[in-house]
């Protein structure tokens, strides 16, 4: 009795597996596809060539002034960035005191990274550090005037420092304010509801630049004689109010998505309004709108550049300001500076959007 054994299956045709198969499916499926692929390849090769020529082959990498960047065919003028890097990060913050800024950056990072990694321990201590200790620490270190630190006026702050200060304060202020506004807009008390509605619609209906103009030109008029905030503070208020209106609409979207049964169940358990909101509604609503919240953060981060129009020197503002330096005036200085600033902004925004996708996947408990 010979045992019956099937012949081994023949391998799949070579043209359907591996790279060839992948390319046939994804690049050359139809004649139209072939044309698109060819067109795309030519475009990529052309663009890649232009970029590589500009950033590396024709670029200057060392030099002390504009003469390094005046070749007949000149690409990027990297020595400009190198020479001004300190300015781009700290602005006119006194050089002897930049260790204070570095310390603030370092502690911020040290507090933020374990907060963002879900498996890191001591979350509640971490929150206390970030929300309780860190703001005070950063304020004292940056402004000085206490503990023997030399005072530094905010007019001397600049570059990435100002960008981060405006963005972080805006983010920290807009989330709680936005939640309150969203709750207020859904409140059953008409006066509170209409106030929140008006606030949200007004701030969402006007451009940020007019809000900043208002903060820098009109705010001093609103305050009694002798009381005045400095310019950075006024911009911070403007940015925070503006982005809280956008945040409110995002949060409202989440609140609307919570089924009525959740409210009724909470009421059946004997929870009052604030307990219901804090323990039942908000945790679910905020989880739903994480992408929207992060998008608002990204928008706010990009919008910090607008403070340059009212005369603050954020990263873009300080780059723009240093174009006026005659010792670096070359045809390529502008583009190099913008590419550098753009790359810095891009890294921050892209990182935020990737993190939001990561969190969204992690928190989607209902789709597993």
């Amino acid at each position, binding site marked *: 009795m010979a045992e019956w054994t099937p012949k081994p299956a023949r391998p799949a045709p070579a043209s359907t597996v591996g790279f060839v198969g992948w390319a046939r499916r*994804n*690049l050359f*499926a139809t004649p139209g*596809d072939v044309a*698109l*692929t060819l067109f*795309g*390849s030519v*475009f*990529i090769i052309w663009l890649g060539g232009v970029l590589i020529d500009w950033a590396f082959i024709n670029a200057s990498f060392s030099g002390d002034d504009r003469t390094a960047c005046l070749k007949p065919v000149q690409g990027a003028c990297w020595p400009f960035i190198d020479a001004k890097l300190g300015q781009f990060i700290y602005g006119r913050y006194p050089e002897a005191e930049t260790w204070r800024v570095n310390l603030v950056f370092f502690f911020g990072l040290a507090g933020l990274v374990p907060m963002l990694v879900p498996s890191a321990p001591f979350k509640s201590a971490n929150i206390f550090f970030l929300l309780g200790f860190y703001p005070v620490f950063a304020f004292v270190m940056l402004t000085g005037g206490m503990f023997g630190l030399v005072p530094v006026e905010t007019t001397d702050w600049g570059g990435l420092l100002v960008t981060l200060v405006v963005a972080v304060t805006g983010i920290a202020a807009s989330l709680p304010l936005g939640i309150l506004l969203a709750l207020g807009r859904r409140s*059953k*008390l*008409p*006066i*509170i509801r209409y*106030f929140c509605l008006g606030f949200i619609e*007004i701030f*969402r*209906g*006007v*451009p*940020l*630049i*007019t809000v900043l*103009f*208002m903060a820098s*030109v*009109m705010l*001093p*008029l*609103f*305050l*009694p*004689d002798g009381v005045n905030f400095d310019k950075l503070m006024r911009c911070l208020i403007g940015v925070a109010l503006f982005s809280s209106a956008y945040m409110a609409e995002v949060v409202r979207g989440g609140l609307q998505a919570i089924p009525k049964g959740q409210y009724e169940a909470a009421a059946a358990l004997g929870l009052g309004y604030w307990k219901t909101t804090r323990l039942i509604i908000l945790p679910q609503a905020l989880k739903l709108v994480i992408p929207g919240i992060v998008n608002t953060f*990204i928008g706010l981060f*990009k*919008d*910090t*550049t*607008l403070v*340059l*129009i009212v005369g603050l020197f954020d990263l*873009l503002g300080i780059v*723009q300001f240093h*174009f006026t330096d005659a010792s670096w005036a070359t*045809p390529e200085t*502008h*583009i190099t500076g*913008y590419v550098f*600033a*753009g790359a810095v*902004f*891009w890294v921050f*925004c*892209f990182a935020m*959007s990737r993190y939001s996708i990561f969190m969204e996947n992690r928190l989607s408990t209902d789709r597993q």
Partner: protein
Amino acid sequence: MIDKSIIQRWRARVGQRDVLAQIAVAVALFLAVYWLIDNVVSNLERQNVASGFGFFNERAGFGINQTLINYSEDSSYGRVLMVGLLNTLLVSVIGIALASLLGFFIGIGRLSQNWLINRLALVYIEIFRNVPLLLQIMFWYFGVLRNLPSPRNSFTAGDVVFFNNRGLILPAIEAGPGAIWYGLALLAGIAAVFWFKRRAKQARFVAGEILPVWRPVALVLVVALMMAFLLAGVPFSLEIPVLRGFNFRGGISVIPEFVALVLALSLYTASFIAEIVRAGIQSVDKGQREAAAALGLSNTQALNLVLVPQALRVIIPPLTSQYLNLTKNSSLAVAIAYPDIVSVFAGTTLTQVGQAVEIILVTMLIYLSLSLLTSFIMNWYNARVALAGGSHG
């Protein structure tokens, strides 16, 4: 009974508390507003700044490099406001059109089966939406357009269109007196579109018949244009710009600020629109296409009658807010001195007149009304689209 009265009393107490809370908020709000206004009034008195809107009739005394209506240095500040507003509208409308077009194509590209096109669209989206718009505007203006060659060494397309550091110079089309006939012919074409569409819809609803629309429309248009040609000949002439001395004469010259602003606004907004279009198309269930095919609809019919209406319902609300964003973002023009409303009114006029409160409020009010108007129109359109999708024949 006892239970009920307890609940009633509890309700009454909660009601009283709510009323008290609201009164407290209202009083606090009133006091805050009163305090602010009081401060403004006393501050203005101290600084001897005039108030009111009298300055609207005063002579402005500065020039503007792009005006859609008659304007000179002798015009009033009220006129400045109009010029600025029209410039804002111009840049917004053209920006919206270009951004929609580009965004639509990139959104489709993002859905392409072709891996390369798909990735290219993704890279475009990720780059342009993650870089601040202001930076992009400055990049195009200070980095690119200002570095273009002088008029003598312009880039040119067939010696008709010129591109240099003074901007974009296009040939002008000049219409003679007979052009009115061509206008009428176009109107006839548009009327034909409405008429044949209505007829086709009626036929579809009443008898389930599919009538052609675009072929009869094309016929009407061709006949009308031929009649216009017989009546008026060719009343159009092309004025081609020519280099005279250091600059171009004739044609339409578009200032570089405008080019940079439109370029940056549409490239930036297109990246958002692309994502909206992609999400909208993906939101239509695969079964819908299969069902349309099962009913015997052709590809075009499936697209027009089944897929697009459903995708539009998802696309339109976020698209509206992108259009509004673009309009509001056009205020960044102030950074490159494009004469929009913020630049000439909240900028130059404010510096000259010094009446910050009135000027900022008027500017904000105008943007607010533009926003409300746009969302009103889009809501109306949205309601129509939603209805068309919602009624089941």
